[in-house]
């Protein structure tokens, strides 16, 4: 399973590395979203600093939709999905590999957006450990849930419009938990961020487990 995961994940990342779609389209999109938030709040610095954690995670959420869509778009051309099915790779491994590739891209994106938030919104760091750990946990949850629902939608005709409708309500807990964690980590509110981290960790664990268990059915039937 792990070997298959490494194969699939490595393949996805290599495709991204060569096509540069994530770097040239998804990342600039996320930065533009941040800029638009600045316009929407009329460049009110105090307000932006306070809302930065929520805005950051909304930007990540929107970008994760693109990343997931992209992750399945590369399987849809030239019957690549049938090829993947015929390789005999462990479906759980395929799931873990695809989720890991999405997570790796999201993590890079979060680093970039983090700089963006610091530069554009002028936030200050309070608890770096919490910041990093909660970002990792939230990313695992986003990538796992996104990969599962991406697979559900991938066989359908209207997947582009359906995918956001499926993913966004489901990842609402991630937005909630990650925003609370980051509010604590950036010192914009005195909440107990570590308590919210458990919600993120539970979400990530549940969706990773469900993906591992159910992906064989999903791969076969979509």
């Amino acid at each position, binding site marked *: 399973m792990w070997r298959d995961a490494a194969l699939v994940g490595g393949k996805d990342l290599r495709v991204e590395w060569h096509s540069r779609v994530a770097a040239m389209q998804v990342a600039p999109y996320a930065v533009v979203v941040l800029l638009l938030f600045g316009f929407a709040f009329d460049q009110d610095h105090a307000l932006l600093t306070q809302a930065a954690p929520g805005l950051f995670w909304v930007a990540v959420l929107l970008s994760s939709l693109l990343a997931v869509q992209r992750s399945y778009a590369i399987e849809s051309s030239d019957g690549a999905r049938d090829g993947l099915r015929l390789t005999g790779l462990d479906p759980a491994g395929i799931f873990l590999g695809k989720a890991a590739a999405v997570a790796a891209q999201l993590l890079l994106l979060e680093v970039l957006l983090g700089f963006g938030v610091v530069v554009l919104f002028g936030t200050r760091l309070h608890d770096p450990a919490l910041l990093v750990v909660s970002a990792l946990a939230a990313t695992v949850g986003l990538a796992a849930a996104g990969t599962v629902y991406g697979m559900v939608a991938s*066989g359908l005709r209207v997947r582009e419009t359906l995918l956001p409708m499926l993913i966004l309500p*489901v990842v*609402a807990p991630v937005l909630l938990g990650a925003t609370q964690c980051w509010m604590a980590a950036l010192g914009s509110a*005195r909440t107990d961020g570590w308590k919210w981290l458990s919600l993120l960790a*539970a979400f990530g664990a*549940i969706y990773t487990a469900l993906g591992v268990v159910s992906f064989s059915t999903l791969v076969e039937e*979509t």
Partner: protein
Amino acid sequence: MTAVSGPRLRTAPAARGTGNGVTRWLGLLALVTVAVTAWLGLSYTPPDATQGQLVRLIYIHPAAATSCYVGFGLCALASVAYLWPRTRSRRWDRLAAASAEVGLLFCVITLATGSIWGRGSWGVWWTWDARLTLTALLCALFIGYVAVRRTGGDPEVRATTKRAARSFGSALRETFRDVSSEVERAFKEPAEK
């Protein structure tokens, strides 16, 4: 005109509908009771001493909320029954689809009447109360579910994948139930600045 010779082509039997004697009587009974309820709720009962005319929403709102939860609960149970190999049958799948649609309709009614009631008694259309927010999320989840079901495709395939999607939804709800009190507290007591 000469009659077509040879064996008559077997055409598909005309759709007979899904009704039978029992469902027809049930439907009639429902119509009558709805009319009686409307009369009782709108003209027979007096306005409430404190809430005034707003109290009439309470005749609809809790009932709609209960129907919504029954519909979604049935959908979850039927989905599990369909996914379970021993009880797999298309009947469960159809039951899940039907109850999800009914549940979604009542969920929208619940949110709408609740919102109108809130405007009248709290002065706002919406408060970010945990229960309200989670119901809205539940509504969004089921809009996605119904949307997936309506995309067509092989029913057998559709059923399995959507059952899987459905069970994730349930798992999410379970997660939510566990953290619900946590979320509620967070919403009720905004973080001290």
